[in-house]
């Protein structure tokens, strides 16, 4: 009986990993980097786990977790509360419709899919910020931000897939 309980706890912890990682990445995203020029093009780190887990294990990243990650991101960064919840949920919805196409494909397909998602996310972010402040936002840093986010994707993706293989294989 004890072993089954332990096993169940172990299973629960493994299943909680994608959601926990996503929330942790939000915190990681606001840690001061102390690099000049970085602020303007700071990558949207949280999009990476949301995209990755939505493609590979959407059952372990339910919508409420994405919503919470978006709210947490907004609360920490001082963005209008709810803005990134909209962006992340919308992206998750879009990726879910393309999941069949993306899952199990080579990494480059996954990367292309991510580029598409980043473009959708940053455009939506730009539009929402513009509407909220009723002012046109500078578009240049947004483009750099999208590029940097896409360029950085392979490393976290490798870490996530490692996590997936070691924690969630066979389930």
């Amino acid at each position, binding site marked *: 009986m004890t072993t089954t309980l332990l096993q169940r706890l172990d299973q629960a912890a493994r299943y909680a990993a994608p959601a926990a990682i996503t929330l942790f990445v939000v*915190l*990681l995203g*606001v*840690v*001061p*980097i*102390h*690099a*000049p*020029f*970085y*602020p*303007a*093009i*700071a990558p949207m780190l949280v999009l990476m786990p949301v995209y990755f887990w939505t493609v590979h294990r959407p059952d372990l990243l*339910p*919508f*409420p977790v*994405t*919503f919470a990650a*978006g*709210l*947490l991101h*907004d*609360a*920490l*960064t*001082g*963005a*209008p*509360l*709810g*803005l990134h*919840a*909209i962006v992340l*949920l*919308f992206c998750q*919805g879009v990726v879910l419709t393309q999941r069949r196409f993306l899952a199990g494909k080579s990494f480059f397909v996954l990367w292309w899919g991510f580029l598409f998602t980043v473009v959708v996310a940053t455009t939506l*972010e*730009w539009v*929402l*910020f513009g509407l*909220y*402040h009723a*002012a046109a*936002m*500078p578009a240049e*840093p*947004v483009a750099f*931000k999208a590029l940097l986010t896409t360029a950085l994707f392979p490393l976290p993706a490798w870490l996530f897939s490692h996590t997936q293989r070691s924690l969630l294989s066979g389930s």
Partner: protein
Amino acid sequence: MARIAALRAAAQRFSFLLLLFGAIAVMMVGKVDSVVVEGARERIMDAVAPILDGLSRPAATAAGMVADVQSLAELRAENAELRAEIAELQQFRDAAFRLEAENLSLRALLNYRPPEPNRYVTARVIADNSGAFVRSVAVALGTDHGVRDGMAVLGGKGLAGRVVQVGERSARVLLITDLNARIPVVVERSRDRAILGGTNTDRPKLAHLPLEAEVRVGDRIVTSGHGGMFPAGLAVGAVAAVDEGEVRVEPFADLSRLDFVRIVDFSPQVPEAELVATPGVSP
């Protein structure tokens, strides 16, 4: 079975739409009535402040090490530069002593009462939230340490921003580069008044300058004290570029590398609201 799967899919779609509209609603409520939403934001910030504090320490150490190695390489050049600066500063010091003596004697003549010295507290930056759309940082001090809304925040060489939100042990500082930052300033040389407005870029711009104002590159920009938000005379930045009526200002404070900031209370002294220094950080 098929029916259960269909029901589950419908429920999922429903929860998706519910959360999406929930998020939109939160954003709209925040726009209309910010008190509730800001309260929620403070509580979230307070809850994760200890985690962020822990995360920011190794990052600061790593950044410090990189800076150390860089400065090692430039040691010789830096030394020469500093010597030249010392020679220059020595003249300023002599002038300052002379002016102070003159000032004291003139004050004595006029029976002038100088303003009380300001109290300040040094705070660690635990989160750098600066992005393409927002320019702000979070610090690890809050109402528990006497920090209040609206206090001026100085970063190294000049004004960095203003406290816009305070929790019990964390506070958010809106940097002067943020789109929402508006600071009444004067051009120190000509005493022309203007408003320094952030643009979410590294260089905020001067707005509402008088038409006849003549601003040159290198002019110092200081706070004017109008509006009562900041005291007059705080160093803000220097004019970096003037073209076609657009004046860009380079802040004195290095806003991309804020490790510690000084939160200064410029309001008249209130005995019960003393600033308390952070444990482990000497102001």
